[in-house]
């Protein structure tokens, strides 16, 4: 069960992504090459949302 979506807040910081292999957090700004700092893995995952999600325990 999800909560309501609210208006997109203005972007304040560059978004942190997680490398697929070494799991280190990389800050990627727009138009930056997509590459992990430590290893050469190029697939990144977004972090989990900071928003509250409510579930029914059923």
């Amino acid at each position, binding site marked *: 069960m999800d909560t309501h979506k609210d208006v997109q807040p203005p972007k304040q910081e560059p978004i942190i992504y997680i490398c697929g292999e070494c799991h280190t957090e990389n800050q990627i700004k727009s138009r930056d090459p997509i590459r992990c700092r430590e290893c050469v893995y190029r697939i990144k995952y977004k972090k989990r949302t900071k928003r509250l999600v*409510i*579930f029914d325990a*059923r």
Partner: protein
Amino acid sequence: MAATQAVEEMRSRVVLGEFGVRNVHTTDFPGNYSGYDDAWDQERFEKNFRVDVVHMDENSLEFDMVGIDASIANAFRRILLAEVPTMAVEKVLVYNNTSIVQDEILAHRLGLIPIHADPRLFEYRNQGDEEGTEIDTLQFRLQVRCTRNPHAAKDSSDPNELYMNHKVYTRHMTWIPLGNQADLFPEGTIRPVHDDILIAQLRPGQEIDLLMHCVKGIGKDHAKFSPVATASYRLLPDITLLEPVEGEAAEELSRCFSPGVVEVQEVQGKKVARVANPRLDTFSREIFRNEKLKKAVRLARVRDHYIFSVESTGVLPPDVLVSEAIKVLMGKCRRFLDELDAVQMD
């Protein structure tokens, strides 16, 4: 003589034959048997009815109820399962869950954890009320983060050594009192029943951070609210030997039943079989696989003697659960009688 015996058997015993069960239904309603007065009589009922507690400890109760019909006994069983309320987790507010266990699976598991809180001290939440008040809600916090253990041995592969907080147990749940709950409930009384239930497993970098709201509910709504694990009854077994069984056959006979049911005694040098304690039998019907002995025994159950077994999940003691079930049934009868009175007035 034989006729009255047969009639008595038909009235009071459920007979287990080799290929089927006979006399299952109650037939002793008024007018069915000539010569018997079966009209319901309060005094006769009170004389025949009794409740005997056989065994009780903190979580399980075994008691006998003698002299009532199957419908009432079954009503108690169904009410114990589905209509005695408890408190259980209903809403899970997830702030962060980076574990392997998906949010909804985690929420489902949390709902099934028995919560040690007397449901009689709480009220049902009103329909449509999302926030909940202190009289109908309990709040718990679960916040665990797994980290790597810096002091672990270099080549160890034991997760208990390598990681810290990698197993999330119910003991990691903390109670957050709402309103005046801190005054009403002393420290440590509101908690999960068991503190060693494994909720999830984590690895370094993973975190679970959530809030849980518990409400009062009944098993009919969701099985997590059922206070028993489980409640059942069986009828008292009645095993009679139709002919004397002696010698080697007596030993064979005692092996066909659960241990303690049939005793073999030495009488004048011969071994004689005797039914010692039929209550212990679980009716495997092994006797019907023995061609010689199956004619010597009659397997039956006493139709109005119910052996109840109630096991509580730990929320309330089992005897309290039975009295709550009785109160629920009385409430239903009262509501029904009030309905009837209301109709008559029109």
